[in-house]
């Protein structure tokens, strides 16, 4: 019975997703099509992706994509021009770091000074799991007297 409920829930979820994703052409009454701001939408999209990786130096807590500061607008324009010239993403990011340093990158570069940053979490994970493993193994080997006596479980009936 419950399986049936689960199945219908899943079906309902699927319908919901389908409904929201559908794109239909809506008949419109006498409106003009608003022009897109970007002269070249494809370059605009690529620019926004890059701009989201860069830090606005004026407000300092927004990306260049989101910031309204004058410098952010100038840099967005600069990126558009560089993309139009055919520069690669790597080249554009290098251009920015040459002028503003690593500070402008929200994704820290991978170099000697940031090694600990990038490797750290993974190392921490290995260290933590490794320690847990060792401790648990050690406890398996210990005599039962070292532990408290077992108590029965509340939900022992499984």
């Amino acid at each position, binding site marked *: 019975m419950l399986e049936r409920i689960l199945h219908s829930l899943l079906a309902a979820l699927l319908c919901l997703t389908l409904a929201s994703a559908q794109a239909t052409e809506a008949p419109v009454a006498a409106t003009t099509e608003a022009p897109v701001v970007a002269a070249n939408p494809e370059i605009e999209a690529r620019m926004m992706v890059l701009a989201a990786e860069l830090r606005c130096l004026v407000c300092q807590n927004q990306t260049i994509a989101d910031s309204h500061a004058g410098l952010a607008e100038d840099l967005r324009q600069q990126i558009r021009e560089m993309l139009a010239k055919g520069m690669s993403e790597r080249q554009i990011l290098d251009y920015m770091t040459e002028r503003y340093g690593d500070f402008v990158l929200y994704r820290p570069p991978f170099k000697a000074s940031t090694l600990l940053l990038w490797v750290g979490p993974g190392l921490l994970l290995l260290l*933590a799991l490794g320690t847990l493993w060792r401790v648990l193994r050690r406890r398996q080997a210990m005599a039962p007297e070292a532990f*408290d006596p077992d108590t029965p479980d509340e939900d022992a009936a499984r």
Partner: protein
Amino acid sequence: MIPELGQVLLLLALAVALIQGVLPLAGAQRGRADWMALARPAAYLQCLLVLAAFACLTSAFVRHDFSVLYVASNSNSLLPLPYRIAAVWGGHEGSLLLWVLMLNVWTVAVARFSRSLPSVFVARILAVLGLVAAGFLLFMLVTSNPFDRLLPAAADGRDLNPLLQDPGMVAHPPMLYMGYVGFSVAYAFAIAALIGGNLDATWARWTRPWTTAAWIFLTFGIGLGSWWAYNELGWGGWWFWDPVENASFMPWLVGTALIHSLAVTEKRGSFKVWTVLLAIMAFSLSLLGTFLVRSGVLSSVHAFATDPRRGLFILIFLVLVIGASLLLFSWRAPSVGLGQRFGLLSKETALLVNNMLLAVACGAVLLGTLYPLFLDAMGMGKISVGPPYFDTVFTLIMAPLLMLMGIGPLMRWKEDQVSGLARRLRWALVIAIGAALLTSWAAGRIAPATTGALALAYWIIASMGVDLLERLRPRGGLSGGVVGRMRLLPRAMVGMWIAHLGVALFAFGVAMVKTYETERDVKMTADASTEVAGYRFRMISVSDVQGPNYVAAQALIEVSRDGQLLATLRPEKRIYKVQSNPMTEAAVDSNLLRDLYISMGERLDNGDWIVRVQHKPFINWIWLGCLVMMGGGLLATSDRRYRARQTRSAELRDLANGMAGEGGR
């Protein structure tokens, strides 16, 4: 007069907090019942004094008293009343007073609901809380007095930051602080147990409801902050891994680990050392967060006005409190018992792996937040660590955790086998992967990472389904039907399911919105329209609007689908009269399936407006997930276990009294 009264009240509160902090603690050491008995009354008195001081500050705001420096800096004669009250905690000094008030609320709650605990224990707990309060009160009086006068008085105030003039501002900080500060209770319980040397399963059972309550508030505070920022800031984002956001998230991660660790300690008496350390860490991270926000060491959009002197004071306070706690820990931890034993593959182990993962996640967030500071302090240059780093690292650590969430709850205590688990869960795995693929396909694009995330969300739910089914299936010896067995399910277990469901909903929302959101920037004038994700957005007009303390250009935009009008949205570009920075007020049409988010950009020379239209599918599941998590926590806290013992011990007490009475005759 009233500000001076407030000042005196704070001084008195400091004196009472010191008495509350020192005497009961000394009394517990020396066995002096009269000193220990001071704890509860002192806690109540301190709360009254701080509440009165808070009322004084609020009255200064309400009455537009610009002779108080803090009021002049954060308010204005045009500021509407609700925001004048919210402005009490809009700046550094007032928010500290809110912090202390919250601490007092928790302390009074502990004083009130701890009748069944041994008096020595209660004395120590209240003393620790008193010492923390004393530290904050001292900090306020020495460096950050909200009652400082401005003479001659300002003609008018500098106004509250327009970004903070929003209903969310009224609720977010108090809820957040209730959470932050709430972990001080678990901390106090831990310290009291370390001092007294009575760390055991009973201690864990007492600590659990307090910790869960704090966790619920913190979840609410963080979720509310995210939701508010999304609706208020106008760029459509809901989490930026800003240092101050991280400062509230880290205690949450450790707090979640603490809740689960307390479960193991309560069940098995095991890993008490880890639990105690987590309790100390959770509150330490709250204090660290306080430091980061107010000291100026990190650049953040949330940071209060900085002053190195304040930063130094908080740092010293931090070192004293955390240093002393960790010293106590290192001294007492070796003598703590091992508890009961359990197998390598067991629910206990699963919970421990869960805690490891959460702690590592917290460590990763801490590393990323403080790394720029490390490098700069060592003269190795300045870098930035932002969303690209955190998103990558955090999701990589969370993935195994979500996987584990589908396995752990089904594992048996003490000992389990892989083969049994695999058999029970194989269909859940198939359903999860299938549903994820189907969802991705239905949404229009199968992205590998997203499908994986969706699969994890479905996996958690499917595994819960298996768990529920197993418990409701007829078993030999049990009668009463499905409904009867449903009623037997412990509240704590149902609460756990609901909380985990909340996590799954959250993960689902994040995966869907990040992958399938779309946006478009268009130049709009009257009667112009554009289409995004099947919705047509048509601008009707732009008009000038007068607010209580701002002027705005307000656009009227109709949203329709298949020719049917769905909503009329009114995004605004506001200019507040006092601070004159333009502010974007986005208009959002929300339902469970998607948000339609419209914000105004610049006005072009020809009168057209740049408008950004965004379609965000399933974004509300993010905050729905938070609410559901909270609901689960609430249900779990109301479990009979936590109340049964109280009544039972009350019964025992009455019995003992009765017997003593009879024996005395």
